[in-house]
């Protein structure tokens, strides 16, 4: 398969993830969307690395995965704290920063 095929696949997954981030009401659901977007990026990195024969993409993918795990851990901890304080994980109701 050509590079374009992989990139298109990744772009689709990215768009779907973005859609999830934009439309989900539940904070955990938003996080799931973000995970999808990360995956799309990883696919891109690996595909470029493979097609250009460059190891760097693989290394970066590895780092991205590790950082993502950290991000998920912290993000979910925050969700739990918010839940504990506000009794909700509905993103619509979390508007303390409203101007």
């Amino acid at each position, binding site marked *: 398969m050509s590079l374009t095929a992989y990139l298109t696949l990744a772009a689709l997954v990215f768009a779907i993830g973005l859609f999830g981030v934009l439309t989900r009401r539940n904070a955990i659901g938003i996080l799931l969307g973000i*995970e999808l977007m990360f995956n799309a990026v990883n696919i891109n990195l690996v595909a470029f690395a493979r097609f250009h024969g460059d190891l760097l993409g*693989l290394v970066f993918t590895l780092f991205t995965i*590790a950082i993502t795990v950290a*991000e998920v851990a912290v993000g979910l901890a925050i969700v739990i704290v918010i839940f504990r304080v506000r009794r909700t994980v509905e993103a619509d109701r979390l508007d303390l920063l409203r101007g």
Partner: protein
Amino acid sequence: MTLETAGFWVVAVVLLASSLAVVLTPNLFHAVLYLAAALVATGVVFLLLDSPFLFAVQLLLYAVGVMAIVVFAIMLTERLVGERITQTSRHLVNGGVVAAGVFIGIAGFLIRVPRSLPRAPLVGDATPALGRALVGPFALTLELLGVLLVVALLGALYFARADE
């Protein structure tokens, strides 16, 4: 149609279908399961791209690690709220238009990619080279990443701990 091509189409369908399910299913728990499927499918894409090591990492870290954390979070919030979390969506049309716009934007770049770009020849197994790179030029980055993980986990612990 080679095996790789066939595999790609199958994986692509699975990946897209499960991704859509993640963002559309009303049941949060199901969404997590679909995400697991999407992650595994991504891993298979890595395998198709001759990166078995990343496939393993994807499975171990993501599909297992992330899933475990997410499920824990759901269980916690669900237990506290005392009812099943059914999630709803907002502004579906708006989100769809914007997401489609972004996709079209990316596609604008994709059509410029030369279709005939050949795969670089496979130079042996990439895994040993990856290992050497990680302890060679990227050793410092790797260490910092380790620190980051520890800090993140400690931070998560701190956030999520029960109030004394």
